[in-house]
């Protein structure tokens, strides 16, 4: 007889023989790829706009979602919108320290905080990055005094506030999607218009399926049938629940699409690829 088998509590201890590590590895690869690309793209501060010609004026054009809304613009850069698109005008001197004079740094904190505190992404990165645990029935890193989300991670409770900002961004990106169907005020359709239209749809599917929204919109109630307003809340709750059941799918699709949207606008703006459209 030996010591009791399969009960040691060490890192990665498991009796599982299947390839449990594939899922966390894919998540690790996917999230790291996005983090590296989005950091690089935000650092550039240029080639995030296209409207038929470099620095073209007029209503309409493609704007990368990483740069929307554009608070300030450094007019010395290439591939940027007309200065009239900047909410607060030219790049201020007091922001000299921001890498690449990129307006993306000023807004990425909002979608980042929403995704970082998201109940789906928490599962994804707790498994893939902090190994707590790496997979079901696989030993995580043993901690002497495990605190879960009661210690440093208490900040996860800001998720609903991050969600409020995320909803504002859905409207901003929807406006950008409409803009993408115009060039110099003329209506048309390009590949970029379709890409930038799909972007807020996927982001909306993700944001409106948020667990916090599901709670606030009706889940907080104990009785769905006790009043007319409760019945209306239940109807809204059912819609959010439909999206919530697909939260993981929308989380990944919207993440990939927002990255692809930036890649597309950047490549068109740099002249690497040509946008197929009805304006030419």
């Amino acid at each position, binding site marked *: 007889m030996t010591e009791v088998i399969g009960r040691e509590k060490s890192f990665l201890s498991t009796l599982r023989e299947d390839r449990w590590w594939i899922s966390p590895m894919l998540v690790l690869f996917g999230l790291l790829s996005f983090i590296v690309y989005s950091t690089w793209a935000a650092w550039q501060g240029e080639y995030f706009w296209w409207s038929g010609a470099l620095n073209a004026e007029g209503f309409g054009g493609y704007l990368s979602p990483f740069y929307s809304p554009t608070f300030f613009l450094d007019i010395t850069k290439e591939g940027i919108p007309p200065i009239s698109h900047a909410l607060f005008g030219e790049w201020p001197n007091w922001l000299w320290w921001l890498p690449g004079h990129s307006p993306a740094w000023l807004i990425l904190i909002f979608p980042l905080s929403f995704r970082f505190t998201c109940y789906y992404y928490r*599962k994804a990165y707790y498994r893939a990055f902090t190994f*707590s645990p790496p997979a079901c029935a696989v030993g995580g890193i043993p901690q002497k005094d495990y605190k879960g989300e009661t210690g440093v991670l208490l900040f996860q409770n800001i998720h609903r506030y991050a969600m409020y900002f995320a909803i504002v961004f859905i409207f901003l990106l929807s406006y950008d999607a409409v803009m993408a169907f115009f060039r110099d005020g003329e209506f048309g359709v390009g590949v970029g218009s379709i890409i930038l239209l799909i972007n807020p749809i996927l982001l909306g599917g993700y944001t409106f399926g948020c667990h916090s929204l599901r709670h606030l919109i009706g889940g907080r109630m104990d*009785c769905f049938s006790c009043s007319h307003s409760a019945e209306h809340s239940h109807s809204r709750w059912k819609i959010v629940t439909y999206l919530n059941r697909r939260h993981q799918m929308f989380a990944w699709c919207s993440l990939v699409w927002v990255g692809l949207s930036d890649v597309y606008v950047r490549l068109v703006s740099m002249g690497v690829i040509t946008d197929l459209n009805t304006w030419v």
Partner: protein
Amino acid sequence: MGNRKFKIYRGDNTKGELVDYNCDVTEGMVVLDAMHRIQADDANDMACRWNCKAGKCGSCSVEINGRPKLACMTRMNEYSPDETIMITPLKAFPIIKDTVTDVSWNYKQNLKIKPFSPAQNKNNTEKGLVMQQVDVERTQHFRKCIECYLCQNVCHVIRDQDAKEKFVGPRFMIRLASLEMHPMDDADRIPAIKEDHGSGMCNITRCCTEVCPEDIQITDDGIIPLKERVVDRYFDPVTMLYRKLFKK
């Protein structure tokens, strides 16, 4: 389906070993059938807990090839013919004998929960409060739980982090959710959910939902809504102010 190889844990909480067995498996057999055949033919003294053999009593919870499962609901044809099937007891609980574990810690957690407290003054009809189907469905979803404790076993807070004192576990978060969301219940369990039952210990890695044989959405419908109710009470200044102003 032919002769299949098994490794079954034999021993107690202090020492034991994986013993090799062979068993003739026929079409339609589940792992529990194979355990019974091994018990009858080769190991008359092997302890094996079971009752309904229909996935409704939650007695035959074990770990099969390292994954928490009900032995009576795990078909033999899920495994390839040359695969050795390893059956071990639930890791999170002390072994009584062989694959049988002592799950009494769970009953103690249940006793900590404030029981159903029907309100005396809630009415939506002349006969008092009558629950409509939408409300019945919501709490009935949680009452599908068969108390197999697979979720408790796979929860890493209980299984790996030795935090049994701080967290009641997913099964009892589900019980708390069924009481908290019940239209007729009037008790306030939110402070206890935060402090005594340890909602903050759960980090939403969803293994409980993955292993649930009743497909209860433990995380999405139980734990997260309770965590959100704790946020309402303790971490959201707007809802705190609203409650203060309107005395809710």
